[in-house]
């Protein structure tokens, strides 16, 4: 039985696409087949983060228009067996697809893959409704900031109203030293506010930007970095494994790192 999971956040810029690409790669690394669907029509980026942008030939719109078969539109990742991407159209807007059509595509893919991850666009309009139409589960990505948490709460409410009840939370871009100095909400604070189960904590790390520059998910290149570990752990938790959360506070109290941070900005 394959799982159809939507990655969503409400607010833009919190790391949905980065999460989808890394999680997709992390799941594929566990020898599971994964199809990633970019549901952000008009503003697609998942292909770019995966480094597959030059190999996109057909998009979901072409499949829906009957101009190609579903299998033809899938871009296979050569680095990882079992990872494919269904790109979104870039020349159309979010209104060019309907929830029913997205559902059709996702359920068709579910026949051939263990996991279907849907990268949801920001907002709660049609693009959001398209992305969640087929989903049985949701991963909420948020950062410990007021706007992101508020929007996450709104989206959780909407998902529950649509009958998506298996909802897990990923807290992204945590800066442990700021939490320690009471300048940022902690993961516990966010959990208490949102009231959904936690499945991952990803620290803020420059390596994430470097990896996106290269079009190579962290879990492939810098797999021993802290954020890559965090993504790999989420993939294992999705499989039902009990994996302890990373101790992000370790290393933070160290005077040397504090000084370096202060002078290094």
């Amino acid at each position: 039985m394959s799982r159809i999971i939507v990655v969503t956040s409400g607010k833009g810029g919190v790391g949905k696409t980065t999460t989808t690409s890394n999680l997709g790669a992390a799941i594929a690394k566990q020898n599971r087949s994964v199809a990633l669907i970019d549901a952000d029509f008009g503003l697609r980026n998942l292909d770019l983060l995966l480094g597959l942008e030059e190999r996109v030939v057909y998009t979901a719109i072409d499949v829906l228009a009957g101009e190609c078969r579903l299998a033809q539109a899938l871009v296979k990742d050569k680095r990882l067996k079992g990872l494919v991407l269904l790109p979104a159209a870039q020349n159309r807007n979010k209104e060019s697809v309907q929830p029913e059509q997205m559902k059709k595509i996702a359920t068709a893919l579910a026949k051939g893959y263990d996991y279907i991850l849907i990268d949801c666009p920001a907002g709660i309009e049609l693009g959001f409704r398209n992305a969640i139409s087929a989903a049985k589960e949701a991963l909420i990505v948020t950062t410990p900031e007021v706007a992101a948490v508020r929007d996450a709460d709104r989206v959780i409410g909407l998902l529950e109203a649509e009958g998506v009840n298996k909802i897990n939370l990923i807290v992204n871009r945590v800066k442990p030293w700021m939490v320690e100095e009471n300048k940022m909400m902690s993961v516990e604070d966010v959990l208490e506010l949102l009231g959904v189960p936690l499945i991952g904590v990803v620290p803020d790390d420059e390596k994430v930007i470097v990896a996106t520059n290269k079009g190579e998910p962290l879990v492939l290149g810098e797999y021993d970095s802290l954020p890559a570990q965090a993504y790999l752990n989420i993939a294992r938790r999705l499989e039902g494994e009990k994996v302890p959360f990373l101790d992000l506070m370790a290393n933070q109290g160290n005077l040397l790192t504090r000084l370096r941070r202060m002078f290094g900005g």
Partner: protein
Amino acid sequence: MLNMIKRLLEMLFPWNNNTNSRSHAKSRLKLIIAHDRASINSDMMEAMREEILDVVARYVEVNRDEMEFSLSNDQRMTSLTANLPIRQIKRMSELTEQLKENKSIDLQHIEVVEIAKEAEAKPKTP
């Protein structure tokens, strides 16, 4: 350079800057999230209130001037609290008559608090 010294001082003497923006963020969010979750439009709320009152009125006589209706939040549960002061409880015979006619309304998901208490407290009201 001045800025750097300032940051160094702040770091060495953390008690000097008691700007705890973390708890500030949390308390603001608590409020706004409760407000967001409770957003149900007033027409709907009014319609629901009338319907609930109709049902309750079949069993007891309610004091409409003193009743309260409100939505509140706790974790992911939003609950509706209705406080309906009771004037008089209807007779059993009257009730069975009415029940024969209508039993289609489902009250399962509504938390009507304190009706029982009120009923106990004011049974002798004329």
